[in-house]
């Protein structure tokens, strides 16, 4: 029994992971957001920069997320970050976002954590940074000849 316990402890000490996983539910977005430079205008016709669209700036919203129990228990969700994203669009007077992207970056802490003894334990938190960025756009109406 003791031997088994020792093996379990050794396995836990030797093999563990630290990090974070998150689900970004994009349905919380209140504005039209496209991952490409093309977006549908209010008339339903595809538009791009210079062709019915005016770029008014860039948007970037970052948030650091933490997880416990070898990343199986994420702390918090991305609702707040998406809300901030919506708020920035509203504040800047934009109507949508093009070139949208999500960047995932593991915290440097994860890379060093296994040197630290408590990282073996499940309550040692893992972390990652999620960044959402894109270009804020506004519709311009072009006269058709």
């Amino acid at each position, binding site marked *: 029994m003791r031997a088994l316990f020792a093996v379990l402890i050794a396995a836990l000490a030797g093999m563990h992971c630290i990090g974070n996983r998150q689900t970004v539910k994009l349905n919380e*977005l*209140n504005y039209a957001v496209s991952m*490409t430079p093309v977006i549908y205008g209010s008339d339903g016709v595809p538009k791009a920069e210079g062709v019915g669209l005016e770029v008014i700036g860039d948007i970037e919203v970052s948030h650091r997320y933490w997880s416990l129990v070898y990343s199986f228990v994420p702390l918090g969700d991305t609702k707040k970050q998406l809300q901030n994203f919506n708020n920035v669009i509203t504040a800047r007077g934009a109507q*949508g976002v093009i070139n949208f992207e999500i960047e995932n970056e593991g915290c440097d802490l994860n*890379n060093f954590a296994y040197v630290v003894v408590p990282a073996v334990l499940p309550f040692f938190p893992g972390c990652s940074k999620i960044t959402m960025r894109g270009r804020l756009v506004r519709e311009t109406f072009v006269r058709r000849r």
Partner: protein
Amino acid sequence: MVKWGVIFAAAGFVACGQPFIMKPKLYNRPVMVGDVRQLGGAKISPDAQQASPFSAEIDILDTPTATSSDWHEKQQYTLDSKLTASTLMGARDAQVTEMKVGSYVFNAVLFYFDKDWIRLSGYSVPPLFVEPERKYLLHVRPVGKRGEKLKKEKPKKGARRRTR
């Protein structure tokens, strides 16, 4: 032991301290994110009968012997390929509803793994905008020299119309 740990940690930091993004590179149609499909539009929930789900994933793994520095070359068109296929070469629209991201450092005494992954899922739906059909008018010029008018054949004087 601590010395080795620091070396591994430094190697890990150098190899794995890069962020990962998944986005279309060549796909030139709108790939809408969330439920709003057009500027100033309202949220439209997908029609379950017409929506076809799709998902794309990139997986980046670092080990002590192999780094993920070339992941971009190998996997940068993963999403483009998936979008092209799921939208039937652009005949349907792509809507992205969810993105899952993960970042782990996994340590097995002598080995060190760093795994990052991004999974994107959504559905394809009938297009919002259908390009109007184009008509081409073909101008056919009669055979002959330029400017040459076609002469009408006059009936010969002596010829009679045959009537019965």
